[in-house]
């Protein structure tokens, strides 16, 4: 079996069709890929932000429900005691130091 005629029929059929991809196909497809990638990254960021905010609110809500009164009492008594207020600058410095460290580390590893 050589199927010579079928071979020839398919060859002629293919050569009759003169359609080809346009020369800017690769460029257009790469642009579409870039756009879809950007949209995908944006969606991921939105989902991550919503998740973080939702969990923060959930945590905060849980703390307020279970420890709200105790925290308020503690805070009031801290303000009333002069010695406790003197701790605030130290705590603020620690917070700023850790926030800066977090920022710098994130920037450093995001580059790699």
């Amino acid at each position: 079996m050589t199927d010579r005629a079928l071979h020839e029929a398919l060859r002629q059929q293919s050569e009759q069709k003169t359609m080809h991809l346009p020369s800017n196909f690769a460029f257009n497809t790469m642009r579409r890929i870039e756009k879809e990638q950007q949209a995908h990254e944006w969606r991921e960021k939105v989902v991550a932000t919503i998740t973080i905010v939702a969990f923060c609110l959930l945590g905060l809500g849980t703390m307020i429900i279970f420890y709200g009164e105790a925290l308020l009492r503690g805070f009031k008594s801290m303000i009333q005691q002069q010695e406790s207020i003197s701790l605030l600058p130290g705590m603020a410095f620690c917070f700023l130091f850790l926030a800066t460290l977090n920022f710098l580390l994130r920037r450093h590893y995001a580059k790699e």
Partner: protein
Amino acid sequence: MHPADEKQLIARILDGHAEEYGYFLTHYGEEVFQLVVRLVPVQQDAEELVQDAFVRAYDKLDTYTGEASFLTWVCHIAYNLTISWLRKQKMKYTSIDERMDVSDADVDQLLDDDSRIQQLKEACTQLKPEEQTLINLFYYNDMPMRDIAYILGLEQGNVATRLYRIRKKLYLIIKRMEKL
């Protein structure tokens, strides 16, 4: 490009060099297009399907295992997209009772007969898209059975069986055309 080099290039693309994907678009775009355009003979539709196939391949690049060449893999994606697209168009194809008794010698003789080329061309257009793709890949592209099976999502043994049935179907279509 050698499969090992293709895998290296894919690793680089996955590593963040997305612009290097352009190599595959430039080198394989036309071949994938020729596969699609045989089933969808409208330039714009075929072009969109090829683009969809390459975009999907890019999205799933991390799942490419290298069991087939990148071109065969993209052809498989493009073929599936095209078949789904054609199903949505609800196109009608000739149905033939393939249980009819036909001798292999008669089929062989008809498919070898040069005076039947025109009839065969017409008969081929009446085959289902899956069948058209199979005979084109086998006869026109001279593709190995293993790659045809991969593109069509079939077992390698099934390709030969289907080919046998398609040859018989072409014979029956031509005989029916002659009766009309």
